[in-house]
């Protein structure tokens, strides 16, 4: 071997060692802000921001990266990245929302459909949604809205003022932010709710509750009620069926209660996934202890939707058994939903056991409360006017 070859070999060996050392160093240090995968859609922002974008609330800058802190996913995003919820993008180092004032669907629904049974019963509520969601439920009924990017849906131009005007003009007393996931169109919800509150229109969230605490508290100041979908009571189910976690949802419920919002809880009972009676029992015990026995609980029957097509609807026996377990655990108002004509749609007074409110589908047939009190004097929790 001659000198030339020796030098060459040294150079190669040196470089090899350097590369190896760098790789090993990287492996151990694992600086998250450097390279690496984040929860989101890399390089997927639109070329230009459109008129329905605003600077997002609730994000932090971390050097070149941006960390969204609206929901516990806490996506770390780089320039031109899109968040997990599909509606927040980073442009020019700032986080922007793409869904400020562009709902893709608006309907006037009966209040009982949300489901909200103890909040302004029998009234109509203007329900809207934009595209996007920070969950990935395989059985989403509104998947065409929630699992879509706002650029791909047909949206209307309804800025917060116009929304509140439209609601007032139609003599509707409340707005529901629902269908997809109101958390991800946070700024729109917050501003519309603030305007609506000024005009005496109530605001309702129909949400899965996967939100961070600080943003939630701010929202609670302008939103009056929420119906929260507690999909199960263990983390494994949450990860499997939604892509999110249980603890932040429970915390959301607690915070909402602290802030004095009216809460109703619903649980979709999916066969083989969330129909375990012990899990339901644990959930009911927690609700009694954390939210109070006066919290209405709805057990909803599952129907095949989106990708979860190969499961049958929940047998009513399971729903009824769940209701029994809930009543045993101490909850006073437990309803079975999505089963037309089921007798448990009525509100029974926990004191005298008489039917205080008789419901037929989305209709109130009989309403026997006077200022929220039953004939026997028992106060039924809710927002009745």
């Amino acid at each position: 071997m001659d000198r030339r070859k020796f030098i060459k070999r040294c150079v190669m060996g040196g470089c090899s060692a350097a590369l190896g050392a760098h790789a090993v160093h990287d492996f151990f240090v694992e600086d998250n802000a450097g390279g690496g995968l984040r929860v989101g859609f890399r390089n997927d922002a639109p070329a230009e921001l459109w008129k329905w974008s605003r600077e997002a609330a609730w994000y932090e800058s971390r050097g070149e990266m941006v960390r969204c802190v609206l929901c516990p996913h806490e996506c770390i995003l780089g320039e031109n990245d899109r968040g997990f919820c599909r509606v927040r993008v980073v442009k020019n180092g700032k986080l922007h929302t793409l869904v400020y004032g562009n709902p893709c669907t608006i309907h006037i629904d009966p209040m009982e459909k949300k489901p909200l049974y103890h909040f302004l019963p029998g009234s109509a509520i203007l329900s809207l949604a934009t595209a996007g969601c920070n969950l990935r439920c395989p059985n989403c009924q509104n998947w065409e809205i929630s699992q879509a990017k706002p650029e791909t849906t047909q949206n209307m131009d309804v800025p917060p003022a116009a929304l509140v005007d439209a609601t007032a003009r139609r003599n509707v007393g409340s707005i529901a932010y629902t269908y997809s996931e109101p958390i991800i169109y946070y700024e729109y919800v917050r501003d519309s709710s603030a305007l609506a509150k000024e005009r005496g229109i109530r605001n309702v969230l129909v949400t899965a509750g996967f939100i961070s605490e600080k943003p939630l508290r701010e929202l609670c100041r302008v939103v009056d009620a929420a119906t929260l979908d507690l999909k199960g009571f263990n983390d494994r189910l949450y990860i499997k069926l939604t892509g999110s976690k249980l603890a932040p949802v429970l915390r959301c419920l607690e915070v909402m209660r602290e802030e004095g919002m009216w809460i109703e809880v619903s649980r979709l009972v999916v066969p083989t996934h969330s129909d375990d009676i012990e899990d339901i029992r644990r959930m009911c015990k927690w609700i009694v202890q954390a939210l109070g026995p006066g919290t209405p609980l709805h057990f909803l029957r599952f129907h095949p939707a989106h990708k979860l097509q190969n499961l049958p609807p929940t047998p009513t026996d399971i729903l009824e058994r769940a209701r029994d377990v809930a009543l045993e655990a101490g909850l006073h108002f437990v309803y079975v939903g999505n089963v037309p004509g089921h007798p448990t749609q009525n509100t029974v007074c926990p004191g005298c056991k008489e039917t205080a409110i008789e419901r037929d589908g989305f209709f109130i047939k009989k309403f026997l409360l006077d200022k929220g009190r039953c004939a026997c004097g028992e106060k039924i929790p809710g927002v009745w006017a």
Partner: protein
Amino acid sequence: MQRSVRLGVASLGITAFVTQVIALREFLTLFAGNELVIGVMLGNWMLLTGLGSFLGRRPGPAVSPVRKIILCQAASALLSPALLVAIRLVKQFFLQGIQPGIGAATIVSIALLAPCCLLSGFLLTRFGGLVADREGAAKIGHVFVLDTLGYVVGGLLFSFCLVHYFSPFQSLTFVMVLSLLSAVLLAMTAGRPALGVVVLAALIVALAAFWNIDVERLTARALYPGQELLHERSTPYGTLAVTRQETQINVYENGVPVGSTQDFVAAEETVHYALAQRPAAKHVLLVSGALTGAIREAAKYPLARIDQVELDPEVLAVVRKISAPEKDPRVVMISEDARRFLRRARGRYDAILMDMPDPSNAQINRYYTAEFFAEAKRALRPGGALSFRLSGSENYAGPEMRRLASSVYRSCASVFKHVLVIPGARRYFLASDEPLDYNIAARLEERRIETRYVHRSYLTAKLTEERIREAKESVSDTVDLNRDFYPTGVHAHLRYWLGHFGGGMAAPGLLVLVIGIGIAALVRASPDRPVSAAISATGFAGMGIEIVLIVAFQICYGYAYRQIGLIVTAFMIGSAAGAAWSARRAGDPRARLARLDGLLAVFAFVLAPALEALRAVDHPLIAAGGPPVIFPVLTGVTGFLGGAQFPLAAKATFQGAEKTFGRLYAVDLLGAAFGSIVISALLIPLIGIAGACYCLGGVKLASAVALRLRRGAPAESQAEVVRDTGAVAPFAVAGFVFAAIGLLIVLEETAAGVYAVSFVPAYHWALLALLAVGLIRAMEFDFGAAWRRSGMHPMRWIHFAAFSLAVFYPIFRCYFKIPYLFCHVCPRKCVFGFLRPWLVPAALIMNLEKRHWCYHACPIGTFYDCQARTGGKPARRPIVFRVTAIAVLIFTAAAYFMLKHDLAEPPAAADWYAFFYLNAFGVSAAVLATAAVLIVLAWRLRRAFCESLCPVGTFSDLMLKLDRAGRG
């Protein structure tokens, strides 16, 4: 022994057919049942069998050891029932109840089918080598005929016997026994009695095991977790299962729950929306929907007669078992194809209430076409009402759903005066010539019909003015009508189904690409390319015409399992007859092949108007003669013309029995695989049956012309080509990886995903580690012969696999018009840009002594080398290449040293590099075109990119030249 060889081949055909049909039905239980999934399953089967038969060939006339063949046959026999078990158990790995998308379907089906199909194809080729009582190319014809006859017997056996009286597992056990017995026979007559005894023992053990364990029941139970399986039956029309959970009884059809005793919403919607509006109705027809309990809802009305028509008689048996045993004398259950039944019922019904699933395949789409609506109208009394449903959404209709709904709505509105759309998660369409309205709740109350969901308490919220207006608006897209022979509904539904999952058609697209590259590589490596291409085209066109005929048959005569089975069998019989006939004739094979191609083209062209005529003409002779005579003859002729080509092609390209058979069978099956994926899911829905016929005819015409124009290859290059055949596989693999990565990067649906994957830290560490290893290898230590032997090839492929994503990425998407050069100032680096500071210096240093990076690591280099091995002699590097190489090197250096800052702000127009800046990850047609040109050039000029453009290559070249000059 020859007789047992023949029996072996035949039993292979029987096993293959029965396993294929049963496996396909099981897959449809696992995945959805639309045309694309069916096409992909069938295509995967044929792709893998073709691959297996290609792998079975060996050069030269050597005869395969019989022992290996017997063992393979025994293994293949045992794999058949194992495949069924595997398909049923694989459901455990998916989320319970989820319907997997096409990507998962493709991958899982390939993984499960691979052992069975590869072995089956392999065996067929090897059997070909064993045939001793024919010479040369005649061997191949003989084996082909025998195999096809096996398919015929298998088809007849299954359609007429096995499917009706045996469960799937029992059927597969039967063919397993058949195969094992034939293996034993072969062993005995081939002078290997010991082996025969072993196989016989295996047979007995297997039979004993299956006798004691009810595998069918066990695996079926695994399909319905959380449910108690009450009844399970595999019928010609699908799998029916009845399960119980608590007090609810559910019925599943092909793994999808279609009805449950506690769910009355579907039944109420099917019946009451329409029937409430026809108070005078006396005769009502229910099409399907028996399992949801629609009969019970219809019985609430004062009707004279309720006819329930259901295709599968088993369904009616289940309905009778699970619904209340009171016999309503008004109800008549009919098991027949509904459309066929309707044709005979003229002006009989006041209401036709349909509950068919979405038009996911041609079979179901027949109930959503304009012609069907016309037939339904004829079966109605004047003013009668028709009701049917489509998938919908309560709150928002996406574009694909709008298309589907609009197409069906317009087809319906072209026949009926009034069509009403009822919004909701299931969208109901009411059609009639007399007026219809939305006051359904009021009418029901008037007539005192008890309902729970179709009731004022829910309808007031469902039928608001707003929602009705939106529903009307969502069916007002301008789209083509859905017609029998132009099934746009199938395509619209496919796009809607694909919209549920991300990724769109990426998986089938990749599959089609793989098959296309495989066909190209095989044709290229064949001694007579137009002949191989013709066989491939015949596979494609033959499969296409068969599909066209089956779809046309269903439209004209309805769906009847035995009749469809007869048609498929007729195709096989024709194929075998054609092969036998042409094997005996003398004459120039190429000319005869071209003639047959021409005949097939003419046949396809004539078929289009002929099918239209058949559908339009309403003559009793045609009605009676169609199923037993006309269609089997048509498919038989197609099979004949196709099958006759095989022995001719064998004669024209003979290189030894196994080799020729392997290659031809592979190219034929790959053509058929291509056809099965593309034709029923895309071609027929997009251009109609007539268009598909013309397209198929055109393909055959093209191959006939190619045969006439290009003479065969000269004899000298035969040897070279024989050597090159082994090079086809690596090139196909490299080409596939390149094209696959490109497709994933270019397609909008997968681009973001690929970008995310390329930034996984583990990937970067792996690449850096590989570079380090490459550098060590470049030092060329000699640890002895073993070290030298072990390293190069596997390492090279490992480098290829690892680096291809990084190195190929900029070709497909880059922030600049010229990739690879501006990475250091790129505001949004891709994985290559991110790694370039390590990759390029490492590559240059690896090239210090020899072009180690270029020849042993760079994926582009590996790709070109594989390509070079399949090509001919290269020409010398032209001068222009040297010039461009130096120019690019200078430009690269300039770009690197002159551009210092990060282009976070787009460059000013005056800056020289502004021309190259795209400000977005763009797919540049110019770059792709250049890459394509370089690939094509490389067949003549060796490593076109590396020699003409690559700066790393040029720089290394210069360094080496300097080094050599320095040495003196």
